[in-house]
């Protein structure tokens, strides 16, 4: 079973993604804080990380940079799910190694398809 870690400070976003993915038989770990996320990811070795950009303490983009520095976690695909919709933001995200840049509001169905594309059915 594939494993996805979702990090967002907005509980309802976590709830939505968890519900949608779990229904598609994908294991989901949700985190409301980015502070200890790196440790969790290192431990859990998920197939995909879905990240919010704007989070207190450690922003999504900083976390992404952190993951890409670590050889163990370098190859974990990252989805950036964010309200920052500007082109420049997207460019920055992609430069930091984000696999997909998804702007809010998003369609859970479409997100699921994208997740399945990455982690395999």
């Amino acid at each position, binding site marked *: 079973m594939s494993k996805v870690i979702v990090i967002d400070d907005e509980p309802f976003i976590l709830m939505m993604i968890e519900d*949608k993915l779990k*229904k598609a038989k994908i294991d989901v770990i949700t985190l409301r804080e980015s502070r200890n996320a790196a440790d969790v990811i290192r431990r859990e070795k998920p197939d995909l990380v879905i990240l919010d950009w704007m989070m*207190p303490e450690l922003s999504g983009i900083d976390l992404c940079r952190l993951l890409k520095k670590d050889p163990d976690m370098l190859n974990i695909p990252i989805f950036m799910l964010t309200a920052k919709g500007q082109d420049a933001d997207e460019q920055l995200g992609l430069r930091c190694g984000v696999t997909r840049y998804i702007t*809010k509001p998003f369609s*859970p169905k479409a997100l699921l398809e994208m997740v399945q594309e990455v982690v395999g059915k």
Partner: protein
Amino acid sequence: MFKTKIIYRLIAVFLVFAIMVLVPFSFTIIKQVNNMIQEEEKFEKPRDDEYARMHQEFIPKLIDQMIPYAFYILVMAFFLAIFFLRNMLVSLRQLQKGSLALKDGNLDIRLEVTSDDELGDATKAFNEMAVALKEKTLELRQKDRYINAMLDPLWVVDEDNNIVDVNPAFTRFFGYRKEDIVGASVYDFFDEKNAGIMRKQLEDRRDLGISSTYEINILTKEGVQVPVLISGSPIYSDDRIIGKIGILKDFREQNDLRNELRRSKEYVETVMDSIEDQLIVIDKDFRIIKANKIAMMNARGAVIGEYCHAVAHEKTRPCWTEGRECPAQTVFMTGRNYRTTHQHAGVAGEKKFHEIVASPIKDATGNVLHVIELIRDVTDRIRHEEEIFNKNRELVALNSVAGLLSRSLRSDEIFAKVLDKMIEMMKMDGGGIFFLDETKKEMTCQYHRGISDEYVKIMGRVRMGEDIPGRVAVTGQIITTADISKDARIERSIMKHSGMKGYCCIPIRGKERIIGVFCLFSFRTHAFTTEEESILNSIGEMTGIALENIRLYEKMRKLYEYQRKRREEEQAQMLSLSTKLGSAIELRDVLGKVLDLIKNFFGADFVWLLVRDRDENLLLKASSSFVGAEDTVVYTRGISSVEGYSLEKRTPTVIQDIRTESKFYLAPELAGMAYQSAISVPMYIGDKPVGVYVLYYLGSREFKEEDLHFLRIIANVLTVSIERSDYYSKSIMEKVLSDSILQSVAEGIITVGTDARIISVNRAFEKMTGVQAAHAVGMPICDVLEFRDENIDFRISLGECLEMALQGSRAGKEGVLTSSAGIKIPMMISSAPILDADGKVQGAVNLLRDISREKEIDRMKTDIIRSVSHEFRTPLSAIVGMTEMILDGDVDETRSRKYLTTILSEGLRLSHMVSDLLSIARIESGMESMRYETIDMKGLLKEIEASFSSLIEKKKASLSYDIDGMPLFVGDTEKIKQLLMNLVDNGLMFSDQGCTIEIQLKKSDNIFEIRVSDSGWGIPEEDMGHLTERFFRGRHGEKIKGTGLGLSLCSEIVKMHGGSMEFKSRVGKGTEVILSFPCKEEK
């Protein structure tokens, strides 16, 4: 009822009369006849005489009987007549009296109707008539009053144009008495010319029944012409014109105004015409609507109403080439003054350069209505610039040739270098040097450039006198031709069909003989000017001398040493002269020193320099020792002097003994000095004599050819300097105006030459950068901004723009300039090339425009869009995503309920944001009203604490407040609550776990103070200035969700209460917000 008619009465009277007459008459006749019958019967047998007597008596008897009756009838008739007449007379008298009263103007008279006969009717009719007459008369009087009250004169004329009536205004205005002019012809009131106008109006227009208005001068009684505006119209009676009526309006004032207007217009035109430059005014269609005389004189055809581009360029549309844009178009577009130089065709079709200064004429709202162009003929200036440029170029070449010759002793090096220099200087394509072998009478090409070795083999050997080099070697005269292939003077030459066009051959002259020749050629035609020829000749001579020196080097070491020294001295002299003169714009300062140099070098006792003015007088410009003030006239025109002679002959003139030369007049300044010999060197630029300088010697002095030669070169240097200085002083004057415009422009302007060094900067530039103009001028443009390290990017941008401009195209870039005071200003750099008449780049203008304001607005706009879109996205995610999942059946019913709750709460969040935005907008637009009341601050704070309780608990934060003596605060409760909640929310949000929030309330000196402080992250320095800007999210905004509206709203609320808001913050320590409100009366 029947009316009794007179006729009935008459019949009745008649009947009575008839009865009264006829009855007695009948009785009488009957009685008489009876008598006759009785008498006849008595005399049955009448006796003849009796009978006769009877018969005879019958008539008298009848008459006797008739008389009483007749009398009776008469009496009756008399009484009847009296009876009738009495009644009628009463009525008639009444009527007569009434008529008389009417005639006397008593319109109120009414007659008593005494009878109901015709006379009664007539009386009634009279009464009605009187009433009608009264009405009519009143109406007429009213009309009369109107006419009399008219201020404008009025006349009525009959069909023969004779005056029938005038109103009082007429008599008042013109001084005539009414009775004098009624009946007079209207033409009597005009002089001949105006009578003609009048006749035309009266006969042509009004006879046709047309009303007309026209202006005319009318004569008053005093014989003064008064301008009036007559509006005339015909008077009809039964479709027939029976006369005309005219209102004459006093037109003096209008006339005066018009005259005034015309005068002021004429004044403007006179002013325009008195301007020596062309001046035209152009409308939006580029048509010329106004032009002064000079502009008209300088055009080949009509000017007014024509298109300006048609007049100036004979083009069908305005100029559009970059750097040569139509000045009018530019001004219409920019609304600013614009200066440019255009090439136009003159009256005779000759090439003219015009400097155009176009300025807008604006209306009150700032729209450009017209463009006024001041066009100055700068052809001469540009020519002079060109001449000076050429002269300078030649002198530089000459200098370097002289340098080459004096530095080297190796002939091959000299010739190769001199040849290269000459090719470069004359812009030729190639050339060669032929040396003469006197024994073989043959010339061989030894050095060549730009031609192949094969070709040199063919034409590299020329016999003396043959072909051009051979001829030059024999004659020693320079030969030049603009196009050798077409030059008829050169019949045979190997070069004729070689493809060469411009060609010259210069003798290399040794001291006594020709050593060889220089040949230069160009594949283009090249017309050699006399100056070029003289320079080439000089080089030929210099080279020849140098060559001889080399040849004689071993044998004539001494001579060489002398030559070398001399060349060196000349070179040094030249260098010092050139440097001194070249760098000096204020010639006066250095000319004296230069003359001293000349004096020392040539060992003269006195040197002076005279310049020729426009009136051909020779004025003192400078002298080695003081003999008079500058610009004093030394020789007036026509006086024969050494100076004038040499200037006229255009050649240096040597006078061996001035004391014996009686034909020359010696200036009194020198007369007492006993000078013996002199050399006078004329100074020319092109064909224009500039002046002359003279070296005077107390003893006699020999002048060698080389001295003369050097003196000539010095003359050239001096000429250029004087001319340039003259030109500079002129152009400085001309530039004062344009400079003042440049200086007043808000944009920073930097002008640079082709070497990217600054020529000028304006005041705005000084202000922007803090660099003074005096410091900047002469510096490479990029170095001028070196004062701050931060400017490196800006300098690069500026450099790139400038590079483009120097290549001839315009360029623009944005950059941030840091002034010397450290202020960062966003700038728009625009660079444009300065082109000369031939389109060659002469430099560039760089414009620095402060775009802080645009940037700021731009940033705020982007922030608003970004924040709105961004902040709306998160709640929208819940609404969109969750709805989709519910609809897709992804969640069961209990979950759906939770989802719907979230959708609701996120929807509410969205709605809060929208209402926050709207609140700000409402407050800003002044639509929000205040509801002042006394606020229970303690209660309010408790309420706030309660609403944050869950967040405080989650953050493990503490909120404390200190109410100093429980002050009462007057304000709008809702708004103050919103304000405090926003501040507390900020304190909680922008801080770590366990933070503390403190609220202090204090009242002192009529100031009510609220302090909200936290122990949070603090606000970074760079964010401090922007806190109350709408949608501004500081550095911490990345971590915390928000709208960027909170403090903006707070600021608006504080403003509404007449208070102020101040922030104190240190990163890592916390933030304190201090709100101060003026105390209000308690309500």
